[in-house]
């Protein structure tokens, strides 16, 4: 069935043509796997191996992990994460606009200010409802 659809879409006539196309995919995948294993394998042969307890910790250079991994996170993080999304999305829209600011002219400026004003209302709301405080 897949072959039939494929033949109709691409106009390929024979099975061998069909297979040859997939051969490219196969070779590409094989080379990818080969490259990774060769590099990692060579690395493990060349590098000295001195195991210390420090190296076994998750996040070797970060904060020491403490306690149970199922511990509850403070709900406040969630609020801040939401606020982050607000500005993240804002930035996504502002960057392309800023790159072409002079082309859009006054019209673009006013548009963007309306956009920022409505989003800023969200921040104002959070601030006024004391969501920005870490009590």
């Amino acid at each position, binding site marked *: 069935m897949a072959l039939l*659809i494929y033949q109709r879409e691409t106009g390929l006539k024979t099975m061998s043509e069909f297979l040859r196309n997939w051969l490219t995919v196969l070779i590409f995948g094989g080379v990818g796997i080969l490259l990774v294993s060769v590099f990692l394998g060579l690395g493990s042969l060349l590098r000295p191996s001195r195991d210390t307890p420090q190296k076994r910790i998750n996040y070797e250079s970060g904060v020491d992990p403490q306690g149970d991994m199922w511990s509850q996170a403070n709900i406040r993080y969630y609020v801040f994460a939401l606020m982050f999304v607000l500005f993240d999305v804002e930035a996504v829209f502002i960057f392309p606009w800023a790159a*072409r600011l002079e*082309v*859009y*002219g006054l*019209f673009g400026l006013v548009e963007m200010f309306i956009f920022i004003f409505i989003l800023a*209302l969200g921040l104002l*709301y959070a601030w*006024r409802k004391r969501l920005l405080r870490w009590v």
Partner: protein
Amino acid sequence: MSTNLLIVAFERPAIDWHAVAPEIVLLSVGVLITLLDILFLEKARPYMAALSGLGILATAIPLLTLGIDGTERVLFDGAYVVDNFSLVLKAIFLLAGYVVILLSTNYIVDGDYWESEYYGLLLASLMGMIMMASSRDLISVFVALELLSIPAYLMVAWRKRDPKSNEAGLKYYLMGVFASAVMLYGMSLLFGVSGTTVLSEIADSIDAGNGSSSVMTLGIVFVVAGFAFKVSAVPFHTWAPDVYEGAPTPVTAFLSVASKAAGFVALLALIFVGFYELSNIWEPLIWILAALSMTVGNLVALRQTNIVRLMAYSGVAQTGFMIAPLAVAGHSLSTGNQALSAIVTYLAIYAAMNLGAFAVIITLARRTGSAEIDSFSGAFHFAPGLTVAMTIFLFSLAGIPPLGGWFAKFEVFRVLATSGETWGYLLAVVAAINSVIALFYYATIARKMWADDPSEKDLNNIEVTPSLVSALAICVLVTLLFGIFPQLVARFTEVSLLAFGV
């Protein structure tokens, strides 16, 4: 192509301010409510309901002037269209929104819920709906859909301390997001084949021969399935009973009427403007959805003991009736136009009768403290007016003349019977059998309210707040008026989306 876009100078899109005036007014009211909440906090609370109600009335003014003007306005290269179809549906949405605000007023105060936010979100959702009515582009359809859904997810979970409400919110959110994802996948396939997001250009692309592509078929199936979730058609209805039961009852009324209508609007726009030519793909799909929705919805509704769950299943069955004319809409252009008018008529009348039924349920449940059907027994002894109103709405939902629901069902049967297709006749038979089944459970509620003995001793007349009285008055008036003078509603719903003209 992309380098060209960079070189071409930006041209300010010509915006027809009159055409987008309703959206701008509604947006301003929403912003105003948020601003007042930020400035005055609790002090502004008591005025929010009135303000949002006035805001909706203010939004209706540009809608009226647009209706009087009557010209079709096309904005943003065909992505946003203000025509008679969109105006009628915007009016339905605004009326439904206004009634829901009337229903919410006391409910939200009594429950000590967050009030300013509630009305802000309600207006945001309404904004998405009136945008949906004008959207003729895959992207604006999707943006409008998200704008109307996301506030609804929040409002469903508004009874924060009740686990049932939380469950409802989570279920609605997960199912809604799943449906959005399926739909978006379908849209991406449609875009992939046709190379455009504007619905009328997709239709051109189908005419040019892209319609035979199997990817196009897949895209249409996914998009229709996504909207079937939104309008709660079987087999995509499973979220409806739990969500309706857990949500605050005014929100349930809003979902069952406005949200469902919004799903229908998008479905109609997609099918009539976008892939009307491919009726061999969507007609069988719609036929199955319609037949299943009517049958399953009605059969399960027979066994419900909770009135809100019963209304949920009755809503599923009504969806089946509403969607039925679509199953023969591709037969010929005139059938298509008749089917569209029948569906819009049904949506308008269904909005009035269903909101009315919910208004009675809210009022009675305030008194009895329960949504079990048995707790409404003997309501005639302590709430005679409400019992009469509920009887009107129930018999209208069942389709008894001379109430509005009768004309809505009549139009559906007329389209199915005049299509001249065997499948159309068959669906008409299924619909007729289901009308009889539906009458049984609607009439059972009415019988309990009239004839049974009340379960409680307190027989003082129930206290009905002014806002609920006005909500009931609007709904009764519309239900009766449209039933007795069907030409009234027919005059407004005589709309067409088919560009070819008939």
